[in-house]
């Protein structure tokens, strides 16, 4: 797996652009160096910001109209022809509408199609549930050959897009609507698919999170340190699959308390992936999954929804305090003789 250290061009200022815009520009820059890259979308050229690529390389870009199933089938064909297709649409259409094309045409044949799924989670909150996507980790994780990535912000989106170009397998990169505040201040860090990043060391509890939750968890950890004197670690698990087992086990060893946070149903996502690693390790650990509790969320702008569902820093502070207040209880029925 190649390590992406920094972006090697400086055509943009990441702090003023959405993750989508950064994706579009990153792709255009990569395409200048690699003739195999082609782009495809289903009437979401502007919305997914693949337009930056399309404008520079009109003869390497295909808009299939509002037909996501056809889009992923065509992407499979383009990959069969020897190209590296980047397919962009909203996460809900990529992971649900066209799930079978993704699974059968792309993953089953193990073709290097790179799926950039935008407006994931509840980032398009006011659009209503038809345009939310809180199921994609579960769907994509269960598809063999598929790598599942959820970058923390625009800079990391750029890194993930660069890192996935030369992998021989299909990759699903999930980003939001793009109005989330940036998490990284600079692109000067090493990024590798499947290797989690420790954002903050801690000794009391570790938050393992991805996507928009990373920045919120860091802010929550700072608050908890100042007001509660707690040492909370934050691990950015940007790759949901393959999960970084070593990072999870290190957190178990270091803090014995793990809280997972994801903008996704708590069923089938990051929390379950982390839980599996812990359960199979045989090590004891206090563990809590935090996300959307198997619900379709209410209507509202994303920031209001993040606050309501406690996915913002304040909410995470509360969740950590809840966990810290819990006791390890002796189980009277346990007999290990």
């Amino acid at each position, binding site marked *: 797996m190649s390590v992406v250290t920094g972006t090697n061009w400086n055509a943009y200022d990441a702090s003023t652009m959405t993750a989508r815009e950064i994706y579009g520009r990153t792709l255009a820059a990569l395409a200048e160096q690699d003739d195999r890259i082609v782009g495809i979308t289903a009437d979401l050229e502007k919305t997914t910001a693949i337009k930056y690529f399309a404008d520079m390389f009109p003869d390497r870009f295909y808009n299939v109209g509002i037909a996501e199933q056809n889009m992923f*089938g065509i992407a499979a064909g383009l990959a069969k022809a020897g190209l590296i*297709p980047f397919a962009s649409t909203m996460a809900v259409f990529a992971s649900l509408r066209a799930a079978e094309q993704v699974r059968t045409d792309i993953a089953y*044949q193990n073709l290097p199609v790179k799926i950039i799924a935008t407006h994931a989670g509840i980032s398009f909150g006011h659009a209503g549930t038809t345009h939310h996507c809180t199921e994609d980790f579960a769907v994509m994780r269960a598809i063999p050959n598929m790598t599942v990535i959820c970058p923390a912000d625009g800079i990391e989106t750029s890194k993930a897009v660069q890192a996935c170009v030369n992998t021989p397998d299909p990759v699903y990169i999930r980003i939001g609507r793009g109005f989330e505040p940036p998490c990284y201040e600079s692109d000067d860090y090493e990024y590798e698919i499947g290797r989690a990043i420790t954002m903050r060391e801690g000794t009391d509890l570790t938050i393992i999170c991805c996507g928009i939750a990373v920045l919120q968890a860091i802010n929550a950890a700072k608050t908890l340190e100042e007001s509660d004197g707690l040492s909370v670690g934050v691990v950015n698990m940007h790759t949901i699959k393959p999960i970084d087992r070593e990072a999870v086990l290190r957190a178990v060893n270091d803090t014995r308390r793990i809280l997972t946070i994801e903008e996704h149903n708590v069923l089938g996502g990051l929390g379950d992936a982390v839980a599996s690693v812990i359960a199979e390790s045989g090590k004891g650990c206090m563990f809590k999954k935090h996300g959307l509790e198997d619900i379709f969320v209410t209507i509202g702008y994303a920031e209001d929804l993040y606050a309501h569902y406690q996915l913002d820093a304040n909410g995470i502070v509360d969740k950590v305090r809840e966990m810290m207040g819990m006791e390890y209880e002796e189980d009277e029925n346990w007999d290990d003789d």
Partner: protein
Amino acid sequence: MALPAEERQRLQDIACELRLTMVDVMAWSGGAHIGGSLSIVEVLSILYFKYLNIDPKRPDWEDRDRFILSKGHAAAGYIPVLAKRGYFLEETLKTFNHFGSPFAMHPDCNKVVGCDASAGSLGHGLSMAVGLGLGARKLKKAYKTICLMGDGECCEGSVWEAAMSASHFKLGNVIGIVDRNRLMIDGMTEDVMALEPFADKWRAFGWEVIEVNGHEFDELDAALEKAWAATDVPVLILAHTVKGKGVDFMENNVLYHYASGDSALCDRAKASILSREEG
């Protein structure tokens, strides 16, 4: 122009041998979609033994013509063709459906040498063909991509998404063939979900339609020659066929959409095939 008699006879002999092998596969595999395999024998024979620019010694040759069996359930008809064309030994067909075999009810291109696309879920093949067509154009390759669909398969909406895009992108390098045998699992296509006016639907989606008797090599040859010459309009060959063709008791019989066969049934089927051949 009609095929030279010798060429027609060569293709007819191949078709007859393939039908006999398909009956064997039905037995070896424990059951097969025999009806929809027998209906495409002439189409597959003329493609693999006259038209497709392929080289069994180089199955991954990047300039080869591509063939996608979108009606993937007819693998029992398709995989024997690959064997006969020399991609692997016909002997290996005996493993069909068995543990660890490369051959299943639906073809897997990562297991079956010479197979260009995994298929089986209906309505997927034409989109992949469009992708290959666009890819060939982008890479300045001259190869054609042929996609063989079932008629019942065309109930799938994704077929029409793909059809729309092939003409929109002016893909003269994609050729569609529909096996119009008029039967699907639950009965006649026109009773289950009417397709007619079927040719007009394809025309309305921007395709040039050529209707042929899908068991007549002369007609298939003329249609394919025209399709091969297409430049910016995709061609759809609507091949009118008979499900179960060549085995008298299977023809137009919905019971033989999928069937298994004991040795007595297989003997009867082969006798029927051979009697047609002699007649």
